[in-house]
Structures are given as C-alpha cells and as structure tokens.
C-alpha cells in the first residue's frame, strides 16, 4: 500500500486502512471476523472476531504513521479499555451470546514512511 505513504490520507481513511490491515492479520491466523465498526450510542467496537474455540475477541485498533505522538497503545487509556469492555457486554447481550468467553484485545498498526504496515497485537489487555 505505497499510496498510503505518498498521498496524505485523512485520519478517517488512515483508521480504515489500519483496521483492514488488522482484519487481514486476524484472517491470516484463522480467526473469524464477526462484525466490524459496530456502533451504538455509547461508542464503537472496531472489530469483533471469534476464535475457532468459540472465544470472542473485541479489538480496538490504533493506527499511527510515526511514533512522534507516542506508541499507539499509549493512546488507549484505562478508561477507554473499560468502555470497550462495557460495549463488549452489550454486543454479547444483543447477539444472545452473553456468558460466552471473550477478551478485550488491542492492535497497533504502525505505517512506515515506505508504506509498510506493521501490526502489533496484544490479547486480553484488561
């Protein structure tokens, strides 16, 4: 995706690009994608995935083009992570999956100036 480097993407497109990168990353590890950009009034879950074991993963994706503003993970505050947890419970309830095992995961996508996307994935951050 070298155009990502050349063309100045808007933050929105950059985020979408990062999320797509993580989706590819998960699919490459045989993890199913259940839902994307699920949104209710309280907020949004970037990716909802399900492992072959049945365990759900609610993924927050942070995309950055440089480390000038700190590591992407540092942008996820504890508060944000707890909000993600509340959203997960809401999703599970709505989709009749309440009580199923699940984790809150975080993914950091770092796009180098050459357009190389590097994914760092952390499971069960809470």
């Amino acid at each position, binding site marked *: 995706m070298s155009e990502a480097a050349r063309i100045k993407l808007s933050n929105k497109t950059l985020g979408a690009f990062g999320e797509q990168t993580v989706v590819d990353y998960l699919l490459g590890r045989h993890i199913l994608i259940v839902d994307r950009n699920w949104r209710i009034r309280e907020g949004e879950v970037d990716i909802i995935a399900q492992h072959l074991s049945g365990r759900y993963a609610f993924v927050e994706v942070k995309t950055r083009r440089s480390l000038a503003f700190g590591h992407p993970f540092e942008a996820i505050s*504890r508060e944000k992570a707890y909000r993600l947890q509340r959203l997960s419970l809401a999703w599970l309830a709505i989709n009749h999956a309440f009580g199923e095992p699940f984790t809150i995961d*975080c993914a950091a996508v770092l796009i180098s100036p050459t357009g190389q996307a590097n994914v760092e994935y*952390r499971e069960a951050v809470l």
Partner: protein
Amino acid sequence: MLGQCLGIALLGLDGQLVSVEVDIADGLPGYTLLGLPDTALTESKDRVRSALVNSGEIWPNKKVTVSLSPAWLPKSGSGFDLPIAIALLSAHGGIPEGRLNKTLFIGELSLDGRVQGVRGVLPSLIAAYKCGITVAVVPLANRLEAELMTEMKIISVGHLREVLMWLRTGESLRNENLECEYAPEDEGFDFSDVAGQPHARLAAEVSAVGGHHLLLIGPPGAGKTMIAQRLPGILPRLSRAEVLEVSAVHSLSRSHNNRSPLSSVAPFVAPHHTATRVAMVGGGSSTIRPGACSLAHRGVLFIDEAPECGAGVLDALRQPLEAGSISIARSIGSVSYPAQFILILAANPCPCGKFSGRGRGCTCSSLQVRRYLGKLSGPLMDRIDLRVEVEPLSRLELVKSEYGDSSATIAERVSKARSVAAHRFNHEPWSLNAQIPSRALQKKYVCEKSAISFLHTELDAERLTGRGLHKVMRIAWSLADLALHPIPTLGDIRTALRLREGSTL
C-alpha cells in the same frame, strides 16, 4: 518478564534492604508502584522513564509492575530511582544478571539520565554492609562519604549510562580528580585571636579535657562567641569510628552544611535561639531527621543568647545530655540518634547586657536581672559544670599584641590530658571526667587530703552545696590531668571553685 535488584530503605540511621522487583507483562501500557511509596517515590515513574529513554534505552510500552519488598515497610525518597531503572532493564533483558545479585543501588535520576545525590548514603551503606552487601553503586555527588566505607567496593556514577556500562562490561569510570566542594578544614579560628579572658580560656580548655558543659556570661562584645567557636579546634581529632558516626548523622540532615564527610574536626553546631524543639532534638512526621544536638555529636553545641530560647527548647536537651543519645518516637516508628556533645551556653547577664563588673550603665531593674538568668532552668544548670563570667576587655588587654596560646598548643595539652584520663578510666564504663559518677568520686577518685579539708570548710560555710561539691571535684580532675598531677591538689580545687562560681547562679 521479571527483573530484580537491591535498594535500601532508611529509618533514622537504621536501614533495611529492599528488594526492587519489576514485572513487565503484556497489556495496556501502565505503571504500578507497590510497597508503600511516599510522594517523592511515586513520582519516580516519570523520572525513570525519561531517564531511560534519554540514555538510549527502551521503555517497554507494556504493563509495568514495580514492587518494593518488604511491602509493609513505608519507603520514602528518591534514592529508589536507580534500582527501579536497573530492575526494569534487567526485566526486559538489557542487563546480564551476574553483577545484580549482591549489589546495592542508590541514586535519584534526572530526566536526562544523570544520577543525582541523595541524603543518607553513608548510613545506608553501613546498614547494607551489616546485611552482607559488599558492592554498592552510589551517586558521584555522594562519593566522598561513600568512600568512608572502605570495607565495601564503591562504584560512584554520574550518569545512568555509566551504571549500565559497568553492569554490562565490568568497567567503571574512575573520576579520580573530584573537585573538593567543601570549605577547608581549618576555618581560621585560632585561640591566639582571643584577647584577654584568661578565665574563659581556661574554662574552654578544661571543658575540652573533661567534656564539661560550659556557661559563658558576659556583656555583648566580650568574646563569648569567639571562644565557643574555637573549642572544636582544641578538641582531639575524631577517630575513624567517630568520623563514621558523625558523618552518618550529617548525611541525613537536610541542611546544606559545608562540612566534609571526611573531616576529622569535631563538629560545631550553633542553632539560632529561635530554633524549635524539633530543630534542636530532631523529629519530623514522615522522615525523622536528626536535630542540632545530634549534628553536634562528638562536637560542640553552642547556643548563643540562651535565655532568649523558646520555652522548653533548652530543657529538651536534658535527656540527651544525660543519655548521650536521643530517641524520637513518631507514628512511623522510633528512631535513636547519638547525641554526645559539649554544650556551651552563652548569655548576657541581663536583658540590656550591661550588668557585669560594676554594672555601670545597666538600665534593668533588679527583678529583671534576676529573672533573666532564671530562665535557664535548674535541672539544666545542674548539668553544666563550668560557669564563667566573661568580663568586658580593658583597653590595656585589647591593644596588647601578645595574646595567649594558639589552638595548636592548647590542643596538644588537651590531648595529653585526655590520654591520662583515658588511662585512668581504662576499666570504667566512662571515659571523661565529666562522666564520673558521684559514688566513684567519694570512694575511688578522691582528692588530696588538704583539698578535702578545704572543701569541707567551704561546705560548712555554706558556700558550696552537696551537688556543687561533686561538680567541683570533676573539674578539679580535669585540671589535675592538665597539670599532670596524679590526683587533684588544693590548688586544683581552688581553681575549680573559681571556674564554677563565675556567676551568682
């Protein structure tokens, strides 16, 4: 990923080794510090992080948990920055473990990675050595006091990079030529500067020989402060063990005294008369600091304008005067500091200061005069052996070019006299004449016959009390040591009486 290294927590002069453990786990970036840290220690997070990054090391963007064990012990101060940084690096594998196990780390980090000096390095090292630690990394600023501990291998560092280089390669930078930031030992106070005052000079000399406390009474400008300031110069030099004791206490003190930790001159501490009780004997709620009387340990505590001291401040000294140490209890624990000092009080004879000699020009009422010195409480005065009046100088004495003996000459006499006393008290629990118990004065350490009968006539004439009798005898022993008399003679007793009767108290 786990890392571990050693720090130390101080309470007073006692220290306890603290195991600094760092765990780096996956999860959101965060930092948790466990083990009852105080505010300065809680702030270490941001210092450690910046120091690591600015020294070219990696800060793990992971969940960092730091535990200071034992967890129940309250820890304070910034000296834990360095061990936390080292344990952190060791946790993510930046340091070979070989040198970590038996090494103590002390130091505060600045944001650029420099290692800053902290208080209490010497007592920390002494405590660590007792726990079997033989290698310590200390800030360069504390190098002088650290190197008093010759039993230990001391690595003094100015920057975090130097610590890491030593841990990784075993090489340490030796900054041999450390500039001396302390005032020269000889501050230029010499007894030959003191004009006249034969009485007060003798009293100071006797005080140095026997460890007697001293009260100087005289009008302003007569030389009370001059004499007091010169007392450390005639006291014997401190032995190595004493230097360790003194420097350990001074290392804890917040005040920026310019006393070199290596100095073997007896300390001289002169708190202002507005000092509070806590300033005088030590205290504080979060950390218990030594007060003026502990800083004067093995030296001289000089209180000018003693009757102006706040209520109870001087009387707080009674217990350390008796015990030679002070224990201070606060909610966080109880701490004992040494406090063996020679107390010198200086006072004007009355509020206006002119009631001496014939009392010419004094504007105070007789009641004021009586009350003024009455502020020095009876129990305190009871502990002060020597009371001398310092007369204003006559013109003749001032213009005289030949003054008395120099400090060096007096110091030689004092040290000779002290060795005589030390030889005599070889098998006794005390070492100074001022410490001879009354019972021993009655039985073992008696004066010449003629001297005893002279004392008896004084007693009969009610010019001397029972308590005063023993004090006179103690002073007489110091005088006898100075004159190399085997036991105090009649002359010694007469002089001793004069050194005691200086005031009407």
